[in-house]
């Protein structure tokens, strides 16, 4: 009888000890009680006035909508072949302009209204791959790869102003759809963003 009681006490103590050592959270969770938390990737972010995720998302969204409405895309007999060219960053801060065009490309590809050719930056890799399977048809195939109906180019600009109370940042992202054969600009649009930061008046 005494042995059974001893075993029960031992089991209880072991269970308490084990539970005490067990990390918080549950199955599929690591570091549950840390300060790191996942947030909404599409939430409006106003941590600083620099070009941020919200600006990237809203720019891509607005310019994609505009491009899909342009008659050269919307009224095309078949989805035109488009190649992304460089979008120049003419601001004073580092902006990954490829992130903007990549996001637009993903959205346009999902729409099914546009086909994309490999970027000029990736053409070397595509060519390397093609050389591996070089054949008599290579020249014809190369032509197909070079035949873009349109290219997309653009610029990102910013104007910053500040006084002792307010800092104002204006971003302008403009894109163009150009027919590379004729050089004609068939569509252009811009996304404007203004961010105003009120400087704290609390001080010594």
């Amino acid at each position, binding site marked *: 009888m005494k042995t059974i009681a001893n075993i029960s006490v031992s089991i209880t103590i072991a269970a308490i000890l084990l539970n005490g050592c067990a990390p918080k959270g549950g199955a599929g969770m690591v570091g549950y009680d840390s300060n790191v938390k996942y947030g*909404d990737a*599409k*939430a*409006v972010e*106003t941590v600083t006035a620099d070009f941020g995720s*919200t600006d990237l*998302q*809203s720019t891509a*969204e607005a310019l*994609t*909508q505009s491009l*899909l*409405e342009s008659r050269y895309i*919307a009224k095309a007999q078949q989805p035109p072949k488009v190649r992304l060219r460089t979008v120049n960053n003419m601001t004073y801060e580092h902006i990954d302009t490829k992130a903007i065009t990549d996001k637009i490309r993903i*959205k*346009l590809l*999902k*729409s*099914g*209204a546009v086909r994309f050719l490999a970027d000029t930056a990736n053409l070397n890799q595509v060519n390397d791959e093609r050389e591996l399977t070089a054949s008599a048809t290579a020249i014809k195939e190369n032509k197909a790869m070079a035949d873009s109906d349109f290219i997309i180019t653009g610029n990102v600009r910013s104007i910053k102003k500040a006084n002792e109370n307010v800092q104002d940042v204006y971003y302008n992202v403009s894109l163009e759809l150009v027919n590379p054969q004729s050089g004609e600009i068939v569509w252009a649009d811009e996304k404007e963003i203004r961010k105003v930061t009120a400087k704290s008046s609390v001080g010594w």
Partner: protein
Amino acid sequence: MSLTKNSVMSLAISSLLLAFSTGCTQKNINIIGEKRVEITKYKSVQEGNFMKIMAELENTDNDNTEGFVYQIEWYDKNGFIKDTTPWKAITIHKNQKVQVIEMTNIPDIVDYKIIVSVPNK
């Protein structure tokens, strides 16, 4: 007296109809947080393969400019959510209306929901 009774009956029936119709049309709207902003009208149109919506948002506050965010959820014919816009910030001055227009980037969208999130003061 009977006229008054009839009027009351008509009023009650009208109120019920209005309540039902409002309940049906509100399925496309979800306002989170304090109700300091109203969606006064909204509609959708089909542009080729893509759905386009318009919503008119009103700041009903007489004193304050309202800053809030909104998002559109896009649904397919099975009621599955297929895409969402990013949350977008918008500011409306007191007693003013703003019209927002959004278009989906993916085809085969048949329904939508406008979500407005108003911060607590």
